[in-house]
């Protein structure tokens, strides 16, 4: 096997207007590669595991940058870096959940250039897939990670369908918890997608992580005022505290009425191909207070419906424990 390490020939476009980027994306279709911070790009290209014809660098497009207020919350441009988000005063004040999640992404240098859009759209880290194997996700007819001897410690415990890869994004869990809306543009116009529907599983989209179609560009993320300043909890358990992706993570947003919980969103990362909402927990915590007692009562629900693989049943108690910790307040 050839072991590749340098960038192969790829064209590069650096548009400064969104329309130009959209036209390019439309024309290039599947052969185009949208470039944000590039931290989930160059590895694929250097390995020659993905071979797009051209990269469309979105960083020069002013319209994709920045954090602005809207009538209902805030809008973050897709090319805004995680560094900018982490340092933004308003996001810190109202949506610290996102700041915490973004702060646990990879390493400082990666957060310095990594964009929100890129972090949300990044591909799964399944090591078989990353090796460039022709698995289901790569358009093949087999999943190497789901065999009787497969090394699948980091893989899915719920929502798998042939492919057992998991969503690696830390900001995705936070944004699903915050009921964000994704804004996608193409030459045909704009469409908005609820964060929950933005991330797609292998049962419907085995070769994709998001519902973006070829030619579409994620331009912005809108976070509703509904969750501004609410009670949040974020935790990510990974082997190393730098670089590593979540074994299991949790992002929680809770609307408190005095001591009792009203609406809430509990979202686990690292357990399914999409951020995984614990709707049963959300129902169960309504009307409860944050306490050891309610933590014990709802924690076991976290792992309901899971089906672990050979090496990842530890994720079940870990999911339960993270819910337990969120509920202690």
């Amino acid at each position, binding site marked *: *096997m*050839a*072991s*590749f*390490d*340098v*960038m*192969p*020939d790829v064209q590069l476009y650096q548009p400064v207007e969104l329309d130009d980027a959209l036209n390019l994306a439309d024309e290039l279709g599947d052969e185009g590669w949208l470039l944000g911070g590039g931290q989930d790009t160059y590895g694929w290209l250097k390995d*020659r595991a993905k071979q797009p014809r051209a990269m469309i660098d979105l960083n020069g497009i002013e319209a994709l940058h920045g954090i602005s207020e809207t009538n209902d919350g805030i809008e973050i441009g897709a090319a805004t870096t995680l560094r900018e988000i982490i340092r933004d005063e308003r996001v810190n004040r109202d949506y610290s959940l996102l700041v915490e999640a973004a702060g646990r992404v990879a*390493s400082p240098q990666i957060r310095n250039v990594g964009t929100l859009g890129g972090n949300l759209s990044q591909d799964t880290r399944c*090591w*078989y897939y990353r*090796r460039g194997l022709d698995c289901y996700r790569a358009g093949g007819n087999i999943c*190497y990670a789901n*065999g*009787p*001897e*497969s*090394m*699948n*410690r*980091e893989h899915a415990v719920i929502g798998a369908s042939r492919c057992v890869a998991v969503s690696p994004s830390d900001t995705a869990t936070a944004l699903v918890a915050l009921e964000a809306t994704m804004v996608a543009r193409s030459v045909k116009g704009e469409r908005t997608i609820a964060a929950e529907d933005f991330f797609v599983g292998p049962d419907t989209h085995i070769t994709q992580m998001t519902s973006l179609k070829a030619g579409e560009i994620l331009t912005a993320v809108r976070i509703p005022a509904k969750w501004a300043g609410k009670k949040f909890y974020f*935790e990510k*358990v990974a*082997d*190393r*505290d*730098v*670089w*590593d992706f979540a*074994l299991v993570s949790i992002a929680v947003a809770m609307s408190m009425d005095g001591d009792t919980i009203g609406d809430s969103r509990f979202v686990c990362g690292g357990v399914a191909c999409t951020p995984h909402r614990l709707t049963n927990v959300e129902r169960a915590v309504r009307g409860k207070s944050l306490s050891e007692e309610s933590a014990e009562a709802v924690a076991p629900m976290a792992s309901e419906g899971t089906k672990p693989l*050979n*090496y*990842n*049943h*530890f*994720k079940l*108690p*870990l999911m339960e*424990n*993270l819910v*337990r*910790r969120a509920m202690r307040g």
Partner: protein
Amino acid sequence: MSDYRLVGKDFTPPDVTGKVTGKAKYAEDFRVDGMVFARMYTSPMAHARVTNIDTSAAEAMDGVVGILTADDVPEVEAPNAAILTNSPAYIGDPILAVAAETEQIAENAMAAIKIDMEPLPFVTDPLDSLIEGGANAREEGNVYARSQEGSGFRTIKWSKEQVDEFRAGKEPTGEFGSEWSYGDIDKAMADAELVFEEPFVTTGYAHMSMEPRTAMAYWENGKCYVHGSAQSQSFWMPGLARLLGVEVEEVVLISENTGGGFGSKIGAYPIAALPGWFSKKINRPVQLRVTREQEYYMGSARVGFQGWIRMGFAADGSILGSDVFIIEDIGANATGGDASSAGGAISLVYNAGAMRFRGLPVLTNTTPRGAQRGPGQNQIAAVMAPIMDKAAKQLSIDPVEIRKINATNNDSLVYSDRRTVTSAYMDEALDKGAEMFDWERRKNQPRKNGSKVRGLGIGQGYHSAGATGFDGLIRITPDGKLHVHTGVGNLGTYSYASTSRAAAEVLNFDWEDCEIHRGNSENNLPWNSYQAGSVSTFAHTRTNYVAAMDALRKMKAIAADTMGGEPDDYEIDGKRIFRSDNAAQGMSYGAIAARAIQLGGEYSGQTYPDDINAITKRSVENLAGTGLVGVAKDNLPQEGVIPGLACAFVEIEMDLETGKYEILDYVGIAECGSVLFPAGLAQQMKGGAVWGMGMAALERHVYDPQNGLPANIGYHQCGIPSYLDVPSVTRTSAVDLPDPQNPFGARGIGEPAMGCSVAALTSAISDALDGHIFGRTPVSPDMVVNHVTGRDQSFLPLQTNNF
């Protein structure tokens, strides 16, 4: 404490400035005219035979300069690693290389090469090979045993029942490869108050030095110039010459800086010779930049253990007997010896009364293994620490105390041949550590806080730490400078510099007047030891001492010859040699050097001792007539084992809900004789601590047994500890008692610095979990969570190379 002027004092090694400015050159930083770039095609199969190679499309590409295959390089007898092979035995085994005008073209060419291969049976876990019907990693057999009687392949199989029993933690009854013992092990166990058995696994993992083993080579005037990433300088020469098929004097090795080695670059490795062969074939300089993934494949890895141990303790805590059985996962190539070293470490560190060691090195189709920082000693250190804690608990003895009871001291006899030690002060090290760590207070403090629980751990590390018989070579020039020629190599321990100061110390030179010659075999370097095995401190304070003493003898002889009297009438100070009874009558160092040149003969290197190595001889010949030459082989007396020892105390806070732990405090104590270079010692102790933390928690080989694929091929997957995975401050100190067999009292420390760390952590993990012994490294968060929640672990008992 010494009252030396230089030895034992801090200084700035001359190469540090280049490192912080970026001027320090590593192998890949060199460019020469006409140089082309090579890339390797490595085996996609775990075990296979190459049946056809079609490079026609690649060769037709513009910019492709040549192809090198196994047919172009010397054949190597299995299971030794070859430069290139047609019988790959692991995924990543190099099959061919392409050279092109740019790296990108080389890779384009690589993509156009078609290699047909016939897959062969493969295996990734020694027990899967050992079980009847299991695959053999090599067609020749599944065991490669090295012994004094001879080394060779064997095929050893155990019945399913034997494997199952072993997995169940029972004493293995299957055939083994080698054995040694001392004392009466059966009697020891019968006499013991407390006897228990523990199974254990230590998974192997990659060295992953920061600098991949890049090499560049070209031929000029019949010599092959190799820019390599070498852990040793002179020690590389014979092996490199052999790999290139030339005489030692026909090779020039340039290795000024090496981006880490940790045992993986001790001697010349096959791939370092690839550019030389390639350059010869295409008549262009060739640089082979090894990629990170390839560095994983061929950059060596720690030997894995699957073992069983039975320990017998007397009521007072002393170890009466230790019976250990270790299966070594030696990967696809011949290596090993870790297991026997581990047995030796049990004998030495714990002073076991009687011992039996049985070992079985099993080949697997995983990356080649080699020495890695404390090979064997550090695996067993991790295994032993919780066992000592268990015994302490059952015998109601303080964990520090039970270690002191068994601590090696100056009277200990070690190993199967019951050898003496040069000196050993583990007792003192434990006392010092306990005091610095405040053990007495901490052991009584509350442990549990919510989901978090604290654990205390103590670890002990050991590696033999010295070698003898190498050469020293120094020179005083008429400008009054001292030139120390060192072939030690430079991988960042600074021992090349700190040992060079021994010569300056003997000759009363100011450090500013000293120049070190190194990093290029054309710099007239002596035959020096490998910079590994914690040996260079001991070995090269001695070589520089004997060379300096030789120079001093010559200076006195020249002084007597020039100014009258007997040599013994003279002494040195203030860069002068003068009569003891009349300081005014003397000569400057510069003058004496000039006089040495005039006199010639042995004084300026025209003649030299017979017993020095041919490499040293050539260097002396080149230097002859340039100054006063001090050259000698280290024939100083040496007897017994030279132990490098260390202990560590650690406190962790483990979160039982996430399985993660934070290291709250770490204290490492070196017992390496007198301290030669305090800052360098702290570096080794702290760096070793980080290595131990990685081994304890993060690093391991993972292979998919169904298809032989490695999971952890990159830096990210290998789990090298980052800033945030280790404590912000690690505290270290040293016992600092001189070893009588070194002129400056110093012994080495690099490897025990790590062993004590991994051991302290396995001990602390066990302590946090009420004495539970995982018997496994690394302990990852999933294992802790599974244990705490009463779930089975995902892997089979004694399974290895798994998540």
